[in-house]
């Protein structure tokens, strides 16, 4: 009993650390990547005693992002505007971060591994209603930004909060519909089972990934996901040119860091979801439990531990790719207007999602069910 508890705790901490580190990495990528795309240098000033330069290394800005900025953020004055609701003002950032982080608990990082006769699921919380859990926690995410905006006693902040919550609520529906089609396709609410179902190939060469049977759902989830994380082109809640910084205008220091953190954690989450639903999660193409079965009948045998490890690596690679994709979108898309945003959500994605669900249902029933 206690060892299971320990394993559970370890898994939770591992997942948490992974997400946090990934987030920090994304922060760096965003700064440096954007500089690269815009043909400028980007963060490059801070260095530790000039060691890197002396060694002749290019300044990657890692010190800026990972050390200097963090130090600055956490040592800055925690400013609360006059007339703000102090309690909610303090609570809001954590209310925003918490649901995103706990969502990762149900994400399967890989297949089971066997350690000393014990089977360990590479999933912090193996839950057979994981999709419902996912939707529930996603729903909670609204409160942080909404209350943050409201509690600041600032018009821009309030407007940002309202925009954020309306936007998240609207796109949650499209997202839910996308996820629903996947649930119907695989006939399960269990994410691990969904990943397992994506193993193997069609026609001898095409991986059985979700993207190939539910392309529309992928589009839905991608768009809605970006909107959920309030990033360009859906970054109206924090549109600098209109609202200063939207709902976190009045935040500074550590609390602002938490908000920023939430932002990137959401990016990771969206990437994870896309990976899980449409790109086989930890499935590596042609890799089975005993090794690679390449098209054409070639078999490349691998030990079980290596297969598991490959799965985890594959998962991270896919996630990273989608993370980067999301960051890249920022520099190629203009910001939408608010009415365009709403129109896209309600008149574009929602009908598409409904059509997709109905079509899926028809196919599922005609095919005699999935179970």
């Amino acid at each position, binding site marked *: 009993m206690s060892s299971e508890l320990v394993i559970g705790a370890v898994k939770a901490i591992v997942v948490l650390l992974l997400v946090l580190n990934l987030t920090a990495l994304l922060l760096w990528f965003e700064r440096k990547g954007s500089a690269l795309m815009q043909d400028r240098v980007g963060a490059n000033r801070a260095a530790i005693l000039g060691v890197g330069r002396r060694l002749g290394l290019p300044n990657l800005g890692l010190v800026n992002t990972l050390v200097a900025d963090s130090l600055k953020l956490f040592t800055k004055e925690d400013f609360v505007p006059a007339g703000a609701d102090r309690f909610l003002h303090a609570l809001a950032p954590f209310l925003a971060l918490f649901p995103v982080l706990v969502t990762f608990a149900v994400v399967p990082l890989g297949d089971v591994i066997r350690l000393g006769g014990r089977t360990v699921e590479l999933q912090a919380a193996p839950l057979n209603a994981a999709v419902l859990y996912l939707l529930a926690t996603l729903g909670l995410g609204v409160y942080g930004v909404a209350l943050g905006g409201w509690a600041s006693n600032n018009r821009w902040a309030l407007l940002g909060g309202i925009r954020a919550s309306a936007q998240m609520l609207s796109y949650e529906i499209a997202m839910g519909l996308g996820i629903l089609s996947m649930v119907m396709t695989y*006939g399960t609410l269990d994410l691990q089972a969904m990943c397992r179902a994506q193993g193997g190939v069609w026609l001898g060469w095409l991986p059985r990934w979700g993207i190939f049977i539910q392309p529309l759902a992928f589009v839905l989830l991608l768009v809605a996901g970006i909107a959920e994380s309030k990033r360009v082109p859906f970054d109206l809640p924090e549109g600098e040119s209109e609202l200063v910084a939207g709902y976190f205008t009045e935040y500074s220091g550590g609390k602002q860091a938490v908000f920023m953190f939430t932002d990137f954690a959401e990016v990771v989450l969206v990437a994870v979801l896309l990976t899980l639903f449409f790109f086989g999660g930890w499935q590596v193409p042609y890799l089975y439990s005993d090794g690679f079965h390449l098209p054409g009948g070639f078999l490349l045998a691998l030990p079980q531990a290596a297969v598991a490890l490959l799965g985890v690596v594959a998962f991270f690679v896919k996630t990273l790719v989608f993370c980067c994709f999301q960051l890249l979108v920022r520099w190629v898309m203009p910001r939408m207007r608010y009415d365009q945003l709403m129109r896209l959500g309600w008149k574009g994605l929602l009908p598409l999602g409904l059509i997709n669900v109905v079509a899926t249902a028809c196919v*599922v*029933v005609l095919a*005699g*069910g999935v*179970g």
Partner: protein
Amino acid sequence: MSPGVLAAVQFSWLAVLPLGIVALAAVAVLLAGARAGQDQGEALGWFSAAALAAAALPVLASLGRSRLAFDGTVAVDAYSVYFELVILFASAMTVLISLRYVAEMGLAPGEYYALVLFAALGMMLMAAADDLILIFLGLETMSLAVYALAGFARRQARSAEAALKYFLLGAFSTGFLLYGIALIYGAAGTLKLEPLRAALAAGTDHRTLLLCGVGLVLIGFAFKVAAVPFHMWTPDAYEGAPTPIAGFMAVGVKLASFAAFLRVFGLHLGALAPTWTAVVWVVAALTMTAGNLIALAQQSLKRMLAYSAIAHAGYLLVGMAAGSNEAAGAILYYLLGYAFTNLGAFAVVVALERRGVEHESIADLRGLGARAPGLSAALALLLLSLTGMPPLAGFVGKLYLFKAALDSGLVWLVVIAVLNSVVSAYYYLRVLVAVYMQEGGVAVAPLAARPALLVAVGAAVLGTVLIGVFPAPYVAAAGAALRSALSLSSPGPLALIAR
């Protein structure tokens, strides 16, 4: 999921078709209304009325049957046919009354009629449901549509306010209803009414829980039928709501609520009758007395009709308190007459209203007898029926009801009831005084020669007279409806209430 699951359900077209027709019509009206302009509103109204009439056909087709469908959640019996027909009629009348009003007041016709149809669907479901879940859903479908309709004239502060009060108190009562259902479920272990009756007949170990639940459900229903002390919403809601909707609330909501009330309490909780009839006795006495006494003081016609509706709920509760087969038949019959009479009265009020000139107070009606003899005569007849003047529908209904109550030994309750109807004569006649015996008032010719309105008023008057003078077929129909509902469960006792 396999298709086998669906096949296992006892599907019944007869149960679904009427609801389906109404729902489809609602969607069609909604879509058409989005495109149509204000001037096509009347066409939408006529279409809605036609759809309601069409829905009556499958209802009639299930006459003579008496069985349960959808795994015992819906009853296909004469009882539901009876109520569904009356509900369809009341809804169609509401639509006809509304035609002119909607145009005159500049309301959105598509949404208006769609909501009326949705409400009608909810009411029909309440009448047919044999399961607490379905009753609840029907109740909510009806209520939500009616909440919205009550506040439909949203440019008027009063309308929105009426909707708010109606909504808050309605939702409050829903809470009681739900908790009560939960406790009954806990005690009996089922939500379906037939097994519930069987379970009660077999006796339960959880009598306390059951009685608590019954009490709370009673509160919930008391709210819906506007029984004192849960009547506070009624006058405000009626006064603020668009007038045709006030009539719809007074008739349709009451019909459906009593249909479910009677089915749940009379038919299925009959084993507990001695406990709840005592409560209903008190509630009935309070309801009629308070309704009538407060109605005396009203200056507004709609408000007066609202209090009179409360009083009539009181009379109907006398029948519930009597708790016999005979009384149940009387309730059915009374509701029929009440539907015709009250809708007619509201139709007349609608005929007098127009934008800017609302015949609000009774004093506005002064001299109407000379300006609009036909309409005044109709109003007089309908009000006399509400008073209980023979040989109109209201009289025979009361007679039947009181007779049944006397047979159950509720002499004092009946005495209270008849004294109340004397009190009620005062305020009904006060209207006639204004119409016929006083001069002045607002010099506006009524909206005469509106075919729909005239049809509605004519139908109401004709019905009121016909049901009153030749009650035999309707009494027989009410009786048949009850027998049909009673015979649903072939085993078990056939008596409505062990009394």
